């Protein structure tokens, strides 16, 4: 482990793991509901990939927290104010187009962040990033292609994708709003300051969204409060009541 404040490192790991946990749960909500069978199973695969990545991130966080905590404890026994995921990822799914737009906006971010993390001074983080990056490379290819297909599709699909982008755009800036945790990670060579990823991100999504004939809203306004836990949306609590129900109703139950 790199020489860094453990509380800061834990915060960083919670941000990584809560992102994949909350999005994984949201995507899993499509299981059995997607518009076609092929998309249904593809979304379920994506959700499972994300939950798998969560086990690594939160498992490492639990290890640092001590008290023989496990990834499950961290996922199922914290409350809303302890979560550190981006607000974007806790928003309700909306229609299929909005779900895929959110997926693309996040996949693009991960596809830029993870290769940087593969060079982390923390060996364990580098290994998690390496394993996750293969899954993310597929996710971003798939979500980008779907965004292009729907954006540059019929009049209705185009309108829905533009509406999805307009709705989600104010949540994109939070990915890059760095704070003292990011500064500590950057100083220790553990992770890049996310603000330094913006240019590459804008280039990537700009290319795909242009191909999708969609217009990026002309606004820098950004909702914040997820990755630092200051103010989550009202939606996260509702999500947790479902996700954590079993462990709350039957503490410690196993099968």
């Amino acid at each position, binding site marked *: 482990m790199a020489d860094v404040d453990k509380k800061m490192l834990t915060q960083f790991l919670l941000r990584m793991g809560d992102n994949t946990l909350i999005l994984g749960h949201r995507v899993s909500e499509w299981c059995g509901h997607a518009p*076609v069978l*092929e998309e249904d*199973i*593809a979304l379920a*695969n994506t959700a499972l990939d994300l939950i798998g990545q969560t086990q690594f991130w939160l498992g490492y966080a639990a290890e640092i927290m001590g008290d023989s905590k496990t990834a499950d404890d961290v996922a199922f026994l914290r409350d809303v104010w302890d979560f550190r995921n981006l607000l974007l990822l806790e928003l309700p799914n909306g229609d299929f187009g909005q779900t895929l737009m959110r997926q693309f906006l996040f996949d693009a971010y991960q596809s830029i962040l993870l290769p940087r993390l593969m060079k982390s001074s923390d060996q364990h983080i580098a290994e998690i990033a390496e394993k996750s990056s293969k899954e993310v490379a*597929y996710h971003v*290819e*798939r979500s980008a*292609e779907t965004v292009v*297909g729907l954006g540059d599709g019929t009049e209705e699909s185009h309108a829905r994708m533009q509406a999805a982008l307009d709705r989600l755009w104010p949540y994109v800036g939070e990915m890059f709003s760095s704070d003292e945790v990011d500064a500590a990670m950057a100083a220790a060579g553990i992770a890049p300051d996310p603000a330094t990823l913006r240019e590459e991100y804008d280039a990537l999504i700009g290319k795909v969204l242009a191909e999708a004939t969609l217009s990026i809203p002309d606004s820098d306004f950004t909702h914040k409060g997820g990755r630092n836990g200051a103010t989550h949306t009202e939606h996260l609590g509702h999500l947790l009541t479902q996700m954590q129900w079993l462990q709350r109703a039957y503490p410690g139950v196993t099968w």
Partner: protein
Amino acid sequence: MSKEWPLWEIFIRGQHGLSHRHVGSLHAPNAEMAIKNARDVYTRRNEGVSIWVVEANNISASSPSEKGPLYEPSESKIYRHPTFFDIPDEVGHM
């Protein structure tokens, strides 16, 4: 134009050295998405190293109603099986 995506037949090679085998079919808007869908539907349990997709209407098939004329004539031609040769012991397993 039909609103349904076309049907694709999916062929997957399980290991290097084996041939592609038909595993099923699925719908997709184009060949690239058909490969992605095939990856997600048919290789979830590590089944493949290569995927072929063919749009179903590009496959010409024999008709089941013609199976008499097509296949029955060969039933009586047992001499087409190479079972009438004596294999010398020295050859071992062929």
